[in-house]
Structures are given as C-alpha cells and as structure tokens.
C-alpha cells in the first residue's frame, strides 16, 4: 500500500471513528485499513478518544466547594459560620445533608444541561437515516423480535413518565 492512499484516506478516518462516514466510503476505508497497520492503529486511537468523550469521568468537586456550599447554606438558614459560632452537632449534620443534596442537584442539573448525546446515539440520526435504518432491520431482526422490541419501546416510554416535579428521563 502506498503512502498516497494513507494520505488520501486520513481525513475520513475521523468520520469513520465517530460514525458519520457514508457506507460506500466506509467500505473503501475499511478495505484500506485491512491491509494498513498504521491507519488501523490510528483508527483504534480515534475510536478510543471518541469513547472517552462519550463517557467522560464525572468531576469531583474540591473540598473548598463543599465548604463554600456549607457556609452558604448555613448562612441562609440563619446559622453563623463556624468561625463565629460553632453549630450544634444536629445542625452540623443537617447542614451537611442539605449541602450534599443541593450539590447533588446542582451537579445533576449541570450534567443534564451540558452532557452531549453519545456519538453513536440514535438521536443523532436525521429522520431519513432513522427510517432507512428501520427498513434495514427486517433483514437482521426476526419478526417476533420486532414485536417484542416494540413492546419494550412502549414500556420504556411508560417508564419515562416523570415523577411529580421531575423531568422525564428520556
């Protein structure tokens, strides 16, 4: 294999790794990858990066964050910060619990708002592609399974009905 092929196909390796390359073009690239160890390694690396991006490690707030949150809440509920008056043990526990709950809500809200859909999420497909995918599946999935899967989808929708005061978890 010549370096010209590697050079020509290199730009579309990224598309292949994240799933945005067309079928016919993917065929060409996969055929090249079969015989080119360099590009195969690059593709594996790119897929690894894509996976990392899809599953980012949840950040752990530093101790200062918890301390600030605690102080803020204690101030809100009328309790002076530790430096001025030491709260009772009961207040300390309540404050810690309230802080933890608030922090949990904040972190959850942040990730709901900012976490992108996974690279291979079906929600990233446009309508036409999704419907063509639906057309492809009968060659791949038995009819009985289709009915089961349909029922599963209905059940999943039912399960996604929100509890009072909470958004549906779709």
């Amino acid at each position, binding site marked *: 294999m010549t370096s010209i092929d590697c050079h020509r196909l290199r730009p579309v390796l990224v598309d292949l790794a994240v799933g945005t390359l067309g079928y016919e073009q993917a065929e*060409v690239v996969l*055929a090249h990858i079969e015989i080119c160890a360099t590009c195969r390694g690059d593709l594996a690396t790119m897929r690894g990066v894509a996976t990392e991006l899809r599953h980012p490690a949840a950040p752990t707030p530093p101790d200062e964050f918890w301390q600030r949150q605690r102080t803020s809440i204690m101030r809100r509920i009328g309790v002076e910060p530790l430096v001025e008056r030491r709260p009772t043990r009961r207040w300390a526990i309540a404050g810690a619990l309230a802080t933890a709950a608030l922090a949990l809500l904040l972190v959850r809200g942040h990730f709901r708002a900012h976490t992108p859909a996974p690279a291979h999420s079906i929600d990233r*497909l446009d309508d036409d592609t999704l419907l063509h995918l639906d057309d492809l599946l009968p060659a791949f999935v038995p009819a009985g399974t289709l009915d089961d899967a349909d029922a599963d989808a209905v059940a999943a929708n039912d399960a996604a009905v929100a509890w009072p005061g909470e958004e549906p978890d779709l």
Partner: protein
Amino acid sequence: MRPIALVLLLAATLGATSAPPARDRAHTYLMLRVVDALDLTDDKALQMRDILRRADARRVALTTQRDALDAKLRTALNAAPVDAAALGQLVADTHNVQSQLASLPETTFDEAQKILTVEQQAKLLLFRRDLQGEVRQAIRRRATSGPAHAAHPKADGH
C-alpha cells in the same frame, strides 16, 4: 502523477467529503453499532459488513418480488372467471417469497455465526433486539414531536 490519475484522486477525495445519502448513513450507523456491540476486530468487521450487505440486498430483491406478486394476485383475483391454475401458481410463488423474507434474519444470523465467537453471537442476539427497540422508540418520539416521515422514499420498497 498523470493528469487522469490526479483527477480520479481528487474526485475520490471530494466524494469522501460530500454528505452521503441517508441509506448509506443508515448502513454505516448499523455497522458501527454492530462493531461496538460485538467488539469486532477490523477483519471481522469487514466480514460482518459483507454479511449485512448481502442480507440487505437479498431483502430488497425479495421485497420487490413480493410487491410484484401481490399486484399479480390482486389482478388475478379481480379477473372473471378466476383462472384457478394460474392463481394457484401465484399463491405458491408468493408464499415462497414471503417465507424467504421471514427467514432472512435467521439466514443472516447463521452466516454471522460462522465468523463470530460464541460470546459475540450472544451479544448479537441481544443487540439486534435492543437496537430495534431503540429505533422504534426514536421513531415514536419523533412522530409525536413533529412530521418525520415526509421525505422518506417508502414507495421504493427499500
């Protein structure tokens, strides 16, 4: 480099950067999901791609045959008097095509079994059902949130 080769190289590069048709994107998406779900090596991915491509080509051919036979059945039923012998042959042909269509997923799985480990076969059985559920759910979500089917060329039977 000779001019013709350069033109061909440029055409291939341009083709690689233009947006692929929805059908190609669906094929690519399916392959990527299969590769991920089954953790396929590159050579197995290539073999699996060929299996799925053959299965889809077979599905399209059988669907076309079925549609043509359905039309012939309707015509034969509307004829007066009904030609029982011809209708009988049409019934046999249509039933045969429908049977082949129904068994296509298992034919596909049988072919896949030859190249996959037992673990990958198990993953495939679970994955295909999961994917179907995802697709149905996504279509249902979009159907309730706006027109999603307008641009779909269902009429081509593919």
